[in-house]
């Protein structure tokens, strides 16, 4: 069995909230709580959850945009704290949710794209030209796009540029943060297809973040479901719809719209206040399977079935 390319152990990331007044109590938002994950080489690992569940914070901590408060992230067995930042950037890259926002509006696409080649790989201008030409072809854009400014291109094109920028650093791992959420479905499918082709061509590993169950199911190998900063369940993507063990995953699958399903309802949907975490399981107030222990003890992530990890005292029986 191959060694995992990414190992995340007990990762925590907090944000301190600006105090209302000088003398007010200091408030801490625990965005990511005690997350542990392994990602294998060549895998497409999905992370799914609703807004505010901490999936983006987790992703940004993995690539080093945020610094973890505790816990470790290891890439190829090296902790990212020990990797110098340029080496880290050559190993793992990030694709932003808002494709236009990640490009400097005052620079041409070419100027935006050549930075990693110049600074991370130290190429000369001839090599840069060659690399850029190859990459534009790989992401399916005409060469003239390079001489346009970000405001002159469409969302789909901008996302191709975002992916190109990440790949130009030469990294083997891409963290894709909702790369298709801002796009129309017809363009979304184009980008997903492109990502599959690029993965085969450059033998990449993906961490793919999304709130869309259908996209995750179709695109990923394994999925981690996040709720309230924690991992609720890790399972193969094929089990997402009908064989999940955590009541929250069940709920997501039930409520996801399908062409043939009836309108479904669940009424207790208010999420707990992120600044005042409840004592036990965060999902307990909404859970249909709730028991005594849920209100006092927070469940740990454990291996329940083959390839399925779940953090629940009373998982759904399959």
């Amino acid at each position, binding site marked *: 069995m191959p060694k995992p390319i990414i190992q995340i152990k007990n990762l925590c990331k907090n944000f301190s909230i600006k105090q*209302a*007044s*000088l*003398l*007010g109590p200091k408030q801490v938002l625990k965005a990511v709580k005690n997350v542990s994950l392994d990602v294998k080489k060549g895998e497409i690992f999905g992370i799914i959850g609703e807004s505010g569940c901490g999936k983006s914070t987790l992703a940004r901590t993995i690539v080093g945009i945020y610094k973890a408060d505790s816990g470790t992230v290891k890439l190829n067995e090296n902790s990212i704290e020990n990797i110098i930042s340029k080496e880290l950037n050559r190993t793992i890259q990030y694709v932003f949710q808002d494709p236009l926002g990640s490009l400097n509006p005052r620079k041409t696409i070419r100027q935006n794209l050549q930075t990693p080649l110049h600074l991370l790989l130290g190429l000369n201008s001839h090599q840069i030209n060659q690399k850029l030409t190859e990459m534009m072809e790989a992401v399916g854009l005409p060469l003239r796009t390079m001489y346009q400014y970000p405001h002159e291109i469409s969302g789909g094109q901008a996302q191709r540029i975002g992916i190109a920028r990440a790949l130009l650093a030469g990294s083997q791992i891409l963290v894709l943060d909702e790369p298709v959420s801002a796009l129309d479905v017809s363009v979304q499918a184009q980008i997903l297809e492109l990502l599959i082709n690029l993965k085969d061509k450059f033998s990449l590993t993906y961490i793919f973040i999304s709130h869309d169950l259908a996209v995750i199911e179709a695109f990923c190998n394994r999925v981690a479901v996040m709720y309230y900063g924690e991992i609720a369940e890790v399972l193969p993507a094929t089990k997402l719809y009908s064989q999940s063990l955590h009541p929250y995953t069940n709920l997501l699958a039930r409520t996801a719209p399908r062409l043939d399903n009836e309108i479904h309802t669940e009424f207790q949907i208010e999420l707990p206040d992120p600044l005042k975490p409840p004592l036990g399981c965060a999902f307990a107030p909404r859970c249909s399977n709730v028991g005594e222990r849920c209100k006092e003890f927070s469940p740990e992530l454990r291996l329940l079935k083959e390839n399925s990890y779940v953090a629940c005292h009373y998982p759904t029986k399959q």
Partner: protein
Amino acid sequence: MPRYIFFRILSIIPVLLGLTLIVFIIMSLIPGDPATAILGSYATPENVARLNQQLGLDKPLFQRYFIWLSNLIQGDFGRSMSLNRPVIDEILERFSATLILSGTAFVLCSFIGILAGVISATRQYGLADKLITLTVLIGISIPSFFLGMMMILYFAVRLRWFPASGMYALYGGGDFIDLLNHLIMPAVALAIVAAGVIARLSRAAMLEVLRLDFIRTARAKGVPEKRVIIRHALRYSMVSILPILGLQAGFVLSGAVYIEIVFQWPGVGRMMVDAILARDIMLVQGGVLFVAACYVIFNIIVDVVQLWLDPRIRS
């Protein structure tokens, strides 16, 4: 909400301390020896040393600050050398005149400015908008002291509508009508610049707000347009107009210095210019501190009104 107000009032203490510190540092930078300045260049060294001790000037700077500060807190702003009376007495006497002038100007400029801004925005690119824009442009470009002089020339000298200077008539005046008569020209001259700035920013704020989603919601609800403009758009714009009013109060207080000179209004501004020219440092220092402190307190009031306007900062 009371809790917020309490903390907000508490938070002026460091600002006021910072204020006194800056004034103290600036004033202690003054070249030359105050004692020599007071006694004149023929003073004997013994006399200078004695006065220095009297004034506490022989102590280290740090200690002097605290002595000075504790005096301030007890209302002792020192003694004016040129007028030979306590600074605080002179300031209190003159401040009411400044307050009447700038208060009137402030009310005028806020009212006219916001009204002009709203009309201008709702009739964007129409005749009213163009006229207002032009007036505003002239208003913010003309020096208030020049405007004041021209007003004297036209309304006082030529038309003889208003008296050219002073706060009350020398003989037989002193009542409210007399004050009003003297007040109108300087107050208008003072208000015009600030009204221009307020009108301009109100117009911009209104135009921005009129594009927001909740305005469309209000229209979709069938709210009559007049109510959309006032209850929805202006109400929301006030959140960004109000801090501008706070800033403009500072500009009105500043402009009052020029206007007081031009119209010979017996206020603090004129007092300070005279004090600077007479090198009466104690008086300048007292005037700066007093007016600045009033301005800080005024801004607290603005903040509290803001709180009342905007429920989002309440929680």
